[in-house]
């Protein structure tokens, strides 16, 4: 039996057990420079798998009173995850979490672009992206562990890598109430290598050009990250957007398989590439998130 048939649930159960053993050790510090009249901005640091210190930006409405809805924006594939503006900051907790290797979560190692996607991919236990996904789970734990406000409904959102992190975190954390995933990175899907890929997924093609004999090994390493495999466990409603011409994040065929396996999916397909729905979808997403979070 090849390694990529290993039960993903068993792997994530094991990683979750490891996370449970690690104290969150959360530090939260108000950032006076970026705080606004309507919301305060905080810098949070917490501990993830292997003892890595991770960073996120978190904003809390100044008028927070009682349970506050929360929006957790998972990171894109890139080194910076900044304080993305959203008008929801005045009514919801908004968290922008980073994963290991990104800016401010880079004390141990710094991610390279291109490069991160295949770092250590020859074995599942050295594959950095497994840890990156575990960091997304840890971000949910940090959101629930912060002491700035009581957390109400939680929506996850993200584009590309952030979309895939959102789906996997929702599959593993039943506390999540909604997911808006745009062109989620299809890393781990067994059909992925059959597509004509561009960056960032083309990092896999680059890797296989140099190490053609490792195809089975990398399929095995990636398998637990397959959003299509995780989809049936996502109980929360999902707003999913895809680009018809996307070859870099979520090829349409895989995106459609994903939509079919999500129990509650509102699929929107746009005539775009990796940018997905662009502005029209951002309007749809904003309204959808407001509805899911109950902030009108």
């Amino acid at each position: 039996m090849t390694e990529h048939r290993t039960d993903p649930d068993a792997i994530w159960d094991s990683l979750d057990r490891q996370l449970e053993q690690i104290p969150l050790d959360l530090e939260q510090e108000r950032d006076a420079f970026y705080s606004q009249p309507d919301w305060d901005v905080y810098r949070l640091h917490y501990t993830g798998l292997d003892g890595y210190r991770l960073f996120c930006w978190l904003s809390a409405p100044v008028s927070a009173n009682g349970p506050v809805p929360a929006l957790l924006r998972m990171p894109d594939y890139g080194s910076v995850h900044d304080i993305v503006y959203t008008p929801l900051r005045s009514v919801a907790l908004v968290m922008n979490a980073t994963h290991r290797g990104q800016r401010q979560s880079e004390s141990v190692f710094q991610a390279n672009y291109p490069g991160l996607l295949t770092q250590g991919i020859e074995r599942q236990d050295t594959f950095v992206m497994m840890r990156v996904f575990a960091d997304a789970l840890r971000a949910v734990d940090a959101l629930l562990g912060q002491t700035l406000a009581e957390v109400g409904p939680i929506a996850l959102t993200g584009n590309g890598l952030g979309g895939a992190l959102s789906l996997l975190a929702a599959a593993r954390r039943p506390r999540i109430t909604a997911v808006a995933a745009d062109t989620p990175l299809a890393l781990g899907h067994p059909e992925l290598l059959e597509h004509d890929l561009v960056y960032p997924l083309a990092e896999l093609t680059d890797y296989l050009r140099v190490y053609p004999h490792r195809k089975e090994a990398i399929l095995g390493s990636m398998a637990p990250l397959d959003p299509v495999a995780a989809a049936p466990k996502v109980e929360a409603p999902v707003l999913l957007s895809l680009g018809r011409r996307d070859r870099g994040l979520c090829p349409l065929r895989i995106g459609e398989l994903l939509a079919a396996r999500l129990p509650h999916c509102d699929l929107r397909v746009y005539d775009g590439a990796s940018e997905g729905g662009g502005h029209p979808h951002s309007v749809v997403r904003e309204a959808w998130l407001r509805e899911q979070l109950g902030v009108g």
Partner: protein
Amino acid sequence: MADQKDLDAFVTQVTRPEDFDDFWERVLAGLAEIPLEPSLSPDPMRSNAEVDVSRVHYRSLDGLEISGWYCVPTEGDGPFPAVIRFPGYKGEPGLRRDWGRKEVVTLTVAVRGKLGSHADFNPGYPGLLTHGIQGRDTYGYKGVISDCSRAVDFLLSRPEVDPQRIFACGSSQGGGLTLITSALRAEIKGGVAGYPFLCCFPESMRMLRSYPYDELNCYARVYPDLAREMLETLRYYDAVNFAPGIKCPMVVGIALEDEVCPPETSYAAYQRLTGPKELWLFPDSGHGNAHDYPAKETEWLERQINLTKPGGADD
């Protein structure tokens, strides 16, 4: 959504300092004193049958080492035309291997602060837009713009590049840097500035609450006594003040739903262009996500490259 009427009605308050040209001549003269020290490190994993990919380095303002990705066609007879791609504010500059099969060299620049160029300068994102903003000589963008100018010098140092066929492009901050660098370096023969950032700072601050421009509002709120100096510094870095100095053909692409770089401010830069120019408006698009933009950019650059004469002065 902004429309043509909004664009035409907008009048920027940004004015050009009297010593604007002197200031930038001094910066470029100082830069010329610094040895370029160009170097290439081939990257076999990113290279393929059509393109040799290298990580490149060169020296820029304050002696900082700047990096970039350099893609050279494996086929064809050089010297080749070249396209420099300037980076956005927070994204990492990517590889452009697709130009290789068209027999075009590409250089994507990691200006200071980006991965590979941040060992000695790392204000972060957010952070860069206000770094050293208390004075025109301390402002972080003095180095960023210098790094872009030195990218032209890097290409001029390469025997495989045709010095008469250097072009530039970029989106967002990369769009602003395309405008600015094209004004400073006449070696650039044409450019495409998409959704340009760094235009009309005072109005952009007022029109939006989104980053990066909102970093300036944060600065003004925390340091109200320094707000006037901040705005004075920004006059030397506003792309609308560089626009009249651009002589080569230039495109400005504007998304009318842009909530990061207000369409009116990009249009103000377009209006101040005095050379051959073209305007692309994308009515139902936001910042950086017009579906047609990448194909239009490629098509325009290919056309300009073919219009210029290899190895000779274009006319």
